[in-house]
């Protein structure tokens, strides 16, 4: 084996190893370690109630229900 052949084998192998190490470090420093369940649990919630809607609901008409069947009025016939 000539010197050139050895260089052609060793140098790319060394570069590949460097790339491998770099990518491995990058992958480990980027990939999240937070589990899926915990990710859902930490979803922020709005600390206020929609008071405007509650006020609108208060202003709605209160109806006393009539559970008896209605007689058809003569004007409708």
């Amino acid at each position, binding site marked *: 084996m000539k010197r050139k052949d050895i260089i052609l084998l060793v140098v790319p192998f060394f570069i590949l190893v*460097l790339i491998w190490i770099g990518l491995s470090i990058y992958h480990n420093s980027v*990939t999240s*370690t937070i589990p899926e369940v915990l990710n859902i649990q930490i979803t922020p919630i709005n600390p206020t109630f929609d008071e405007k809607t509650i006020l609108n609901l208060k202003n709605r008409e209160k109806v006393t229900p009539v559970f008896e069947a209605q007689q058809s009025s003569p004007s409708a016939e």
Partner: protein
Amino acid sequence: MKILSKNIFKILPVGKFDLLPDFKEERTQKFTTLVLTLVALSLFGLLAINPTLSTIAKLKKQVSDNNFVDQKLQQKINALTALSQKYTSLQNDLPIITAAIPKNPEIPLLVAQIQATSKNSNVSLNSLQTFQVEIEKPKIQKKFSSFSFAFSADGSYNDLLKFVSLVSNMERVVSVDILSLTKRTGSNLLELTFKGKAFFNQ
């Protein structure tokens, strides 16, 4: 044994080791050093440096993720505490909210409310129908469930207008899907056809 070690290079056949480099040459020494250094670095890199640096990166990421989770959980705890205090002050309003959007479909109550509204508006209710309620849970979690209902009523224009206004503004929240008015042949009365949706929180 002593004789053998002294004369070992003399015994070796001449011409068999011509392929081996001449290590006395300075260039060969430098080349060999370089190649062996690269090979050693590569092997150490793969077997020792890579796992160590990867573990360090992973642990650093874990620490930052844990800090992030801690911060988010603290924020959520604060929000829940604030909500809990506000919920206590809203206790009196809860019946209004559950009347607007009950926990069950409460179909008889809705029908009775529509009936009462028609009576109050001086409108004659001809038919009142409620449609199927979807009990099966959908794949996408919805905040509210709903069911459709429809009715038709007869009355004067003003009475029907009042009726529709009361139905859409009664304490139970309903939405209007279809609303049509047709004039009855041979009379001044109008016929109202109403189709809407009522909501409940399943």
